[in-house]
């Protein structure tokens, strides 16, 4: 046995011992079973792979044995978080006092009620007539004024 392979074997033994320590107490015979198989594995690389699997198995079982990891425990966490978020949402809703949209600006620039007020025009850059004033705004005023003749 060369130095590298004996090092691999030592690592495998250490990992298997670690796995036995992590495994829940009730399953310690199973941890022993996995560890003792190492003595029957001839190749050191195979022994190392085996030991890595032992570590994986022991952590999986350790996590599965934890009460907070169970489906029932998770369900409770999810339900409690949902209730909390619902209460926060209701509290904010009450403070908003039924307001469903942001407050309007003091001056609405899009209306054309005042003749002297600046008229803002929506622009459509894909349209060749983008600069044209829309009839629902300034043109409407023009039509209503007899001193200005509409375009023909």
């Amino acid at each position, binding site marked *: 046995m060369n130095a590298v392979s004996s090092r691999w074997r030592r690592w495998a033994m250490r990992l298997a011992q670690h796995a036995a320590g992590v495994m829940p107490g009730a*399953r310690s*015979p*199973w941890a*022993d*079973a*996995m560890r*003792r*198989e190492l*003595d*029957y*594995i001839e190749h050191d690389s195979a022994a190392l*792979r*085996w*030991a*890595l*699997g*032992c*570590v*994986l*198995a022991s952590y*999986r*079982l350790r996590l599965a044995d934890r009460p907070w990891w169970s489906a029932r425990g998770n369900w409770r966490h999810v339900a409690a978080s949902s209730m909390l978020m619902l209460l926060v949402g209701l509290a904010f809703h009450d403070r908003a006092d039924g307001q469903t949209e942001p407050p309007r600006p003091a001056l609405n620039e899009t209306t054309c009620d005042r003749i002297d007020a600046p008229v803002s025009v929506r622009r459509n850059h894909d349209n060749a007539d983008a600069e044209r004033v829309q009839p629902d705004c300034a043109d409407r005023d023009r039509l209503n004024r007899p001193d200005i003749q509409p375009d023909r």
Partner: protein
Amino acid sequence: MPRKPNNSRQTRALLAAFLERSRTWRHGYDLSKETGLSSGTLYPLLMRLSEQGLLEERWQQAERPGLPPRHVYRLTASGLALAREQELAAIAAERAGAFA
């Protein structure tokens, strides 16, 4: 739809390996080589089957001196019934696939 228990590919492979030599005590490394399952997958499966009463286990003295006792496994009567049932289901599925 809830998943059927003991119906994963790995469990079926393990049950098939046990069924092949149903009365023989098998050890972990042997099963790992036969099924291709790593120890990290194999042992949780063995534990689950044992807890469900489908597998019996015991310590076996080593054949060669200087080696530790070994944990060995064998299907119980109910485990054997389940393995046979799954084998029949696999054969039926294979035939259905062939005729489709």
